[in-house]
């Protein structure tokens, strides 16, 4: 197995009086796309938010690139090299597409070569470059959120349900973009409900249920084993068509 860029050891998270994560153990290998799957309410988003420090782990440790980041603040974690694309298109609606992108560039400037590559992945962004991000369609907003995360090379991308609520054609565009992103050697932890997308993209997989990781392994193995899918995710055979 490749070396791990991110490791969660027995992470517990409480939100108010609710105990959401019950000792998560998770490893994200460097240079791979790891899928984080699970039913609604399994704790996937909480896991990403805990990694980012948006919610503090009440117990356990988060190690990133060999460094304990459990108690770091969110800006410190972001500056350490983790980019986060939250659920529901985490864009700034009042700012233009350009301003959204520049915000994510740490020195305030975007490398023109990288921008050209991003426009290749998401052509709509070039077209609407000077428009307010709030005026974009749902798919375009999601593209912008992902583009913002990759505006500079980052050690790890955390992406929460990028295909949620998108039309099938847009989902295929998104999958293609992730494939290209993978080909550059990016490390990605991707939360996804769409099993078809997960099967096409994932190298490894972790499945969560009730705040725990209940399965870890290669994505290809889970994709082949329909009984396991049924057991872990409650997927019917129709979901694979």
């Amino acid at each position, binding site marked *: 197995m490749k070396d791990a860029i991110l490791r969660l050891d027995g992470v517990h998270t409480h939100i108010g009086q609710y105990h959401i994560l019950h000792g998560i153990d998770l490893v994200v290998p460097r240079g791979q796309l790891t899928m984080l799957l699970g039913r609604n309410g399994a704790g996937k988003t909480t896991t990403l938010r805990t990694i*980012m420090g*948006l919610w503090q782990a009440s117990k356990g440790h988060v190690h990133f690139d060999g460094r304990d980041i459990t108690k770091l*603040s*969110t*800006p410190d974690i*972001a*500056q350490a090299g983790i980019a*986060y694309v*939250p659920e529901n298109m*985490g864009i*700034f*609606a*009042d*700012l233009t597409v350009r*301003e959204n992108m*520049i*915000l*994510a560039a*740490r020195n*305030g400037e975007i490398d023109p070569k990288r921008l050209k590559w991003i426009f290749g992945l998401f052509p709509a962004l070039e077209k609407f470059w000077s428009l307010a991000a709030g005026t974009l369609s749902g798919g375009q907003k999601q593209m912008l959120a992902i583009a*913002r995360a990759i505006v500079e090379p980052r050690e790890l991308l955390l992406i929460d349900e990028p295909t949620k609520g998108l039309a099938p054609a847009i989902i295929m565009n998104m999958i293609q973009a992730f494939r290209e992103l993978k080909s550059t050697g990016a490390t990605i932890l991707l939360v996804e409900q769409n099993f078809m997308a997960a099967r096409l993209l994932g190298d490894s997989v972790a499945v969560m249920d009730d705040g725990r990781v209940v399965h870890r392994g290669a994505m290809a193995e889970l994709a082949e084993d329909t009984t396991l899918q049924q057991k872990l995710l409650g997927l019917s055979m129709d979901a694979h068509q």
Partner: protein
Amino acid sequence: MLPNNPIHSILSGDYPRSKALSVALVIVLVSLAFAPFLFPGSQPLNVAAKICVFVILVASYDLLLGYTGIVSFAHTMFYGIGGYGVAIAMYNFNAGWGALGLGVLAALVLAMLLALLIGLFSLRVRAIFFAMITLAVASAFAILASQLNEITGGEDGRSYRIPEMLRPAFRLFDEPVLGVMINGRILTYYLIFFAALILFLLALRVVNSPFGRVLQAIRENDFRAEALGYRVVVYRSIANCLSAGMATLAGVLMALWLRYTGPDTTLSFAIMIDILLMVVIGGMGTLYGAVLGATIFILAQNYLQVLMGQFSGMLEAAGIPLLPGLFHADRWLLWLGILFVLSVYFFPVGIVGKLRQMKS
């Protein structure tokens, strides 16, 4: 327009983006620039000076409320610090430029230190708590200003002399220019006008800088801004300090104009409400809104009563029943309130927002 265009550079690339708005802004700018010649007399000049000061005060508040999403009730406190800085310095030392500079400097340092302290201690908490804390601090400051009789003049405030060149008796030329004698009062007006213009353009530069973009991102979603690596508390504190500094300078300008500083003219909660109304009327999150909001509100405050009196007289002379009473000059506050409710109803995004929407 091209980025190397001088207008682009002066406006920091932030164009009005509406023909009607551009026309309105040019009318306000030209009227204020030539106010002593276009509208002779002390009352119009007083209104014009007040507009200049309030444009800065409202713009500085919009930097907090409209651009950063912070609700503060301590804005008049900073405005008051500016006023009292000038008052105390001019009252206690010789009324020269040195004393004025010292007063301004001391006021700026105190205001920005207070803003930093309030920011660092309370900008971590939820917005409503920050608003409450600023309200408490501002109230405490107002009480302090009233109680420290020896220093501030208490409830009576302080009247003082200003540098000779700015006094009404000073004459710059022996002969009138365009029919107007250029005296110290007019020089004070132009000092206020140009200071306000420069401060406004600096504020435009701030909100259109990378720093300003981060403030807007924080206003929209502070968690997302943090996830991009921005320390929200630091940015909010800097915005709070900048806004306080601008409000302090507005207080300085008003103190120079009035040659008097007291609790009612600087620290009153009514001024805080006026600032809020001007921001809402002009439009939040756009500095041009401060120009239109302040101009309309101050014109209404100063002339609505007179206009209503004349209108009521006309209705009475025409023998129309009931209406003369309704439009009596004493009811001007009622009509100002109605105007405000209507403007919020019809222009929820403010006048600037509405004009830009009409354009698109």
